[in-house]
């Protein structure tokens, strides 16, 4: 049977121009990789938004990282001051992964 290990999955809905900032924070937290999911639109407290390749200002991405608990905590703490100013939606959940050494 495949060996599974518990890790933390953090997803952040973020404006596309701010992705690089998140990637830097993840790296500083010791998280070596991330994945970007393309999202096409939605609505929230700031009103409706949709994919915007023209200006890129209101386009959003889902920024996904998987990390062990210590790194996940460090990354979450780094996101805390940006929640309002960068209008982040942050989700955290537990997942089972294969090849745990990668995360």
């Amino acid at each position, binding site marked *: 049977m495949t060996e599974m290990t518990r890790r933390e999955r953090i997803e952040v809905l973020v*404006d596309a*121009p*701010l992705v690089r900032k998140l990637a830097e924070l993840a790296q500083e937290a010791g998280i070596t990789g991330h994945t970007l999911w393309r999202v096409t639109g939605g609505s929230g407290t*700031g*009103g409706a938004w949709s994919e915007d390749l*023209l*200006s890129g200002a*209101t386009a959003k991405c889902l920024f996904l990282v998987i990390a062990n608990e210590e790194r996940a905590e460090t990354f979450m703490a780094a996101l805390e001051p940006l929640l*309002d100013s960068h209008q982040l939606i942050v989700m955290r959940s537990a997942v089972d992964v294969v090849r745990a050494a990668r995360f």
Partner: protein
Amino acid sequence: MDQIATSLMSPPVLFFVLGALAAAAKSDLAVPETIAKGMSLYLMAAIGLKGGVEVSRAGVDGQLGLALLAGLGLSFAIPFLVAPILRRLGRLDRVNAGAVAAHYGSVSVVTFVTANQIYAGSGFLAAGFMVAVLAAMETPAILSGLVIARREAGGRLFEPRLLHEVAFNGSVVLLLGSFAIGMLLGEDGYQPILPLFTTGFTGVLCLFLLDMGLLAMRRLMQTRALTVRLAMLGVAFPLVNGTLGVLAGVLVGLDAPSVAVLGVLAASASYIAVPAAMRLSLPQADAGLYLAMSLGVTFPFNIVLGIPLFRWLAETLTPMLGAA
């Protein structure tokens, strides 16, 4: 009035109006994002190439330098002019005033392209080097907007990453790059690619403006941040800034079509280069607000009324002041 009627009846403007009406009627009409992005790249490459070919034919003279200086000066100065008005009349805080002001100092490529196309249709041809002025005016306003937003906050005004974004912004690279290619190719070298970049140009512009009409109207309908005062400023700014642009063009001795185009550039507000830069450097500013003003109010105003208005102003003032 004749110029306004002619401008309104031009195919690109009619397609823009169609897009706006479709969005107002809540039609499901949509141009796929990737196609819209492709069309914007095509238009920028085409306008850059044509400008470069035109400069290779006419040659470079002192007018180019003066026009560049006028454009750079306008782009740097306009944010400092509009920001206090945004704070006092628009009741915006310093950060939002700086972000919105940066949009008004920068320029709209599509407004420039549409103005050139409408003017050229009646033989009112601006100098080819105005493409270089367009590219030069894209980014200085970003720096001015950041100075306005951050001068009381202390700390570093510009991050190295932002300076890189400003210098190598995609639209600036494409405009200047295709302008340089056009200059290198000259008229003979341009002939093989002319069918793609000249023959199809107006058709692509029509489709792009259809999308812009949809975007502008939807942006206006969706926004929660735009007040009546700010909407009025979105009309007042292009009138004042465009007049300043026309005056600057006349003072540096440009011909009437180039004066009109400089007026259109000064009147226009960015919605391609600046919004992403502001999101990156001033994330706390309201993107819905600056996009609603620049794309939802100022862009339609310029497309429908600004383009003929600044031509009329240029044709009136150039003989009066240009000869003085």
